């Protein structure tokens, strides 16, 4: 292989040690030291980043939680590429959480082990290449020593080191010798991109065989011998409490071991543990726990939000928008633009609360040893790094004495960035003195979520005589995602709701963004692509409304706004730069793919939308038909994405398909509503996922080729679907969707 020498952007050390089977383990020095102090730890057995056995099996560690985003496939691909092994010979192993608490500040041993913000690939790109290259170089050095050859003359391919004279040795043959050598001088040379044989090639989900045979283990599949099953009846009232309870009947259920009250947070206080108070039923098995819970009699106190409803929240937002909000961006002179405007266009868009509804409900196994002050946690979580501190805060166990193991995870979508269910399991384990496997039911999961914020977006645009957009005013009233966070000041609550550098910042001379703090007792959190979902819907729908009002082509208007290829600073997550040409690239791709501008029969329409999300550029074009009675059919969807260099095209395609389906389900059906201070939805009958019959029969994904450093793709595929759909619907039947979900709006509008 050809190599180029690159300076690693960050230090990438290598520690080499022997595996139990006579192979070699490549890890980081801190890990090697850490194996001995905790010999009971499964971590030592699971191994480190790379393990090569004498029989040539190659094990590569995956550090991020796998929630379906494809991290366990794509990140090891990067190591395998530079290690120069055959992907078919690689087995991927999940790394446990590993934080070094010995220094002044805790340090990740394997790198950041979270799953959020579509950052896994970007971070793996920054260190995994060098890591794989260093391990490869150690094997080359072992071969050089065996052959008394100059390492620089040796090449590798498919897990073998090759001598110029034709001899070769497999990595397995060299493993024991590599393990005995001192760590090589680093950084080792990296491959040139033109030599990639794994990166950029389609690779299927690495755990596919385990998944299709039922062997894949998720959090809920944790069956530790000493675990009792806990389910909890939580207060259904927002910020309510347990007034009294009677567990007489619950305790009579065979298998029920204990019933304990678990306190919740004080109303409106920052949330440091579990989300809601309630009664936990602990039993020998799941069914007994569920039956015991059903037999509980609990009286609740309603709490301070008893009069909140979806209708009252909408009135509250409407009222807020009549006043003045917090100006968070004010480019140019909007008032002057308004005074000089030839045309003004206004519209208000309304988005509901939404639930994550991962198919695997929340669950967690916790074993506390309060004598030895040690804890073991097995959890499906997107944020394992926060667990040692959480356990410490609730039990006093020092952070370094909590082991955290990761399972495969049945969906995340941002829900599992919050470890409230881990806290619950810890609290129940502490109260009962038992090892606990906590299980949430679907009803628990839908009612006790950290919901995507609801909000009202008021947009006003001004145009001059040449139909150029001169002013842009977005006024958003929303319940901030920063829900009861201790460290967020009131004046910063707008930050997760609206991103000031988003389109059309700097493309329109006069831009004002204004945020209004809506009050609500509904818990909020991060939902796939956070505020991009709502903002892209509002902004990209509104562009079409402007185009329609001023008789312009919606594609041409977007192209005009994006203008010549330019690069702008982008200060929010996904920056530091935003390239107009890359957004134009995905927009043009979907416009061509859908056949923009062609004549369509009556009742058919196409619509498009583009958006920059967390460093990735994505666009959707949707073709729909709407019957005279208002029946909607999504005929065809074309999407395009530019996330820089493509690591696994099959994974990117999956994420774009997933984003499209997720976007469709949310746009068509999903809303969490409140009545009397309680969440109304309870299961998939009133919070529907998209049935296969409603999925588009034709969905094309275009992936833009790029040499830019790779970004993730978990969130880029969702924001543009809903506005492209709404724009297509308008073009098909003239009904403008300004409120999500769409539900039966078309039938009602067309019947009128």
């Amino acid at each position, binding site marked *: 292989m050809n190599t180029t020498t690159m300076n690693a952007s960050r230090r990438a050390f290598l520690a080499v040690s022997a595996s139990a089977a006579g192979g070699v383990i490549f890890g980081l020095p801190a890990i090697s030291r850490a194996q001995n102090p905790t010999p009971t730890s499964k971590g030592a057995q699971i191994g480190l980043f790379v393990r090569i056995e004498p029989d040539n099996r190659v094990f590569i560690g995956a550090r991020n939680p796998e929630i379906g985003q494809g991290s366990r496939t794509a990140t090891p691909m990067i190591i395998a590429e530079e290690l120069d092994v055959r992907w078919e010979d690689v087995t991927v192993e999940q790394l446990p959480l590993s934080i070094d608490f010995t220094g002044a500040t805790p340090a990740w041993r394997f790198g950041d082990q979270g799953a959020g913000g579509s950052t896994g690939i970007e971070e793996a790109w920054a260190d995994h290449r060098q890591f794989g290259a260093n391990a490869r170089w150690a094997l080359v050095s072992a071969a050089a020593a065996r052959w008394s050859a100059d390492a620089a003359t040796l090449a590798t391919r498919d897990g073998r080191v090759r001598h110029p004279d034709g001899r070769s040795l497999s990595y397995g043959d060299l493993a024991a010798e590599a393990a005995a050598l001192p760590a090589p001088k680093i950084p080792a040379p990296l491959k040139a991109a033109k030599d990639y044989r794994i990166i950029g090639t389609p690779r299927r989900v690495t755990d596919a065989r385990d998944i299709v045979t*039922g062997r894949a283990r998720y959090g809920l599949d944790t069956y530790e011998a000493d675990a009792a099953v806990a389910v909890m009846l939580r207060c259904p009232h927002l910020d309510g409490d347990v007034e009294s309870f009677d567990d007489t009947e619950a305790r009579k259920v065979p298998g029920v071991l204990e019933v304990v009250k678990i306190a919740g947070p004080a109303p409106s206080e920052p949330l440091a543990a579990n989300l809601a108070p309630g009664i936990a039923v602990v039993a020998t098995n799941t069914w007994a726990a569920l039956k015991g819970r059903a037999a509980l009699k609990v009286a609740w106190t309603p709490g301070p939000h008893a009069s909140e409803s979806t209708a009252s929240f909408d009135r509250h937002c409407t009222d807020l928008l009549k006043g003045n909000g917090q100006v968070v961006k004010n480019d140019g002179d909007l008032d002057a633009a308004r005074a000089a405007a030839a045309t003004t266009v206004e519209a208000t868009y309304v988005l509901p609360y939404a639930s994550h509804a991962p198919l695997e409900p929340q669950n967690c196994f916790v074993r506390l040893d309060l004598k030895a002050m040690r804890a073991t946690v097995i959890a499906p979580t997107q944020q394992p790094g926060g667990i040692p501190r959480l356990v410490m805060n609730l039990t006093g166990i020092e952070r370094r004495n909590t082991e955290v193991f990761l399972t495969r995870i049945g969906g995340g979508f941002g829900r599992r960035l919050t470890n409230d269910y881990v806290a619950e399991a810890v609290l129940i384990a502490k109260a009962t003195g038992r090892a606990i496997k906590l299980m949430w039911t679907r009803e628990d999961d839908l009612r006790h979520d950290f919901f995507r914020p609801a909000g009202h977006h008021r947009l006003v645009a001004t145009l001059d005589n040449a139909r150029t957009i001169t002013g842009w005013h977005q006024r958003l009233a929303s319940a901030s995602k920063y829900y009861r966070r201790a460290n967020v000041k009131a004046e910063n609550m707008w930050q997760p709701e609206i991103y000031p550098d988003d389109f059309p910042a700097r493309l329109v001379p006069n831009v004002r963004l204004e945020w209004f703090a809506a009050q609500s007792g509904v818990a909020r959190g991060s939902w796939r692509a956070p505020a991009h979902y709502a903002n892209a819907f509002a902004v990209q729908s509104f562009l079409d409304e402007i185009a329609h009002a001023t008789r312009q082509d919606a594609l041409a208007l977007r192209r005009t706004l994006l203008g010549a290829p330019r690069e702008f600073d982008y200060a929010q997550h996904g920056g530091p730069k935003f390239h107009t040409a890359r957004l134009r690239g995905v927009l043009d791709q979907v416009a061509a793919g859908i056949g923009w501008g062609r004549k369509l029969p009556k009742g058919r329409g196409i619509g498009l939308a583009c958006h920059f999300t967390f460093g990735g550029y994505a666009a959707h074009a949707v073709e729909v038909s709407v019957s005279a009675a208002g029946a909607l059919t999504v005929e065809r969807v074309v999407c395009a994405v530019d996330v820089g260099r493509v690591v696994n095209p099959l994974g990117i395609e999956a994420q774009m398909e997933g984003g499209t389906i997720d976007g469709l389900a949310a746009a068509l059906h999903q809303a969490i509503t409140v009545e009397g201070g309680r969440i109304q939805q309870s*299961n998939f009958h009133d919070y529907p996922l998209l049935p296969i019959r409603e999925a588009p029969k034709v969905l094309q994904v275009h992936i833009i080729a790029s040499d830019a450093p790779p970004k993730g793709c978990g969130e880029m595929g969702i924001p543009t679907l809903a506005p492209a759909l709404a724009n297509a619907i308008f073009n098909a039947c003239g009904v403008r969707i300004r409120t999500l979900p769409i539900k039966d709006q078309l039938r009602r509008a067309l019947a009128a």
Partner: protein
Amino acid sequence: MATMRLTVNGKTQTYAGDPDQPLLWYLRDTLRLTGAKYGCGAGLCGACTVHVDGKAVRACSVSMGTLAGRRVATIESLEQDGRLHAVQQAWIEEDVAQCGYCQAGQIMAVVDLLRVKPNPSDADIDALTNLCRCGTQMRVRRAVKKAAAMLRRPA
């Protein structure tokens, strides 16, 4: 209750527990067959789909008391002597899974569909009610068609 017998993946089992217990918890908690997943507990999502006497059912909504003398088959029984069922093979080839949590249930539902409809139309596939949260619906459709073709092909 009296002891009853049922067959699970070809093995006879005796059961003397609560007749109201859903099959799902018996499979998972007692037999440790964890391929059938809990997703909704109300027969809505299909993540727990297994076969009873060859037909796809939602294990969360079938009580143990109804299963005396019945044959239960779970995803764990689909692979025979290390050979995957055509539906499993098609699932891998079409790279269907994202998180994978619903997939065992999807596969069990499709095995039953192809038993009844060896050459399923799009409308037949549309009748599947298993839910996927990740958005694998397009790939499920392709995998069903591929599996049907594999099963029709003479061995």
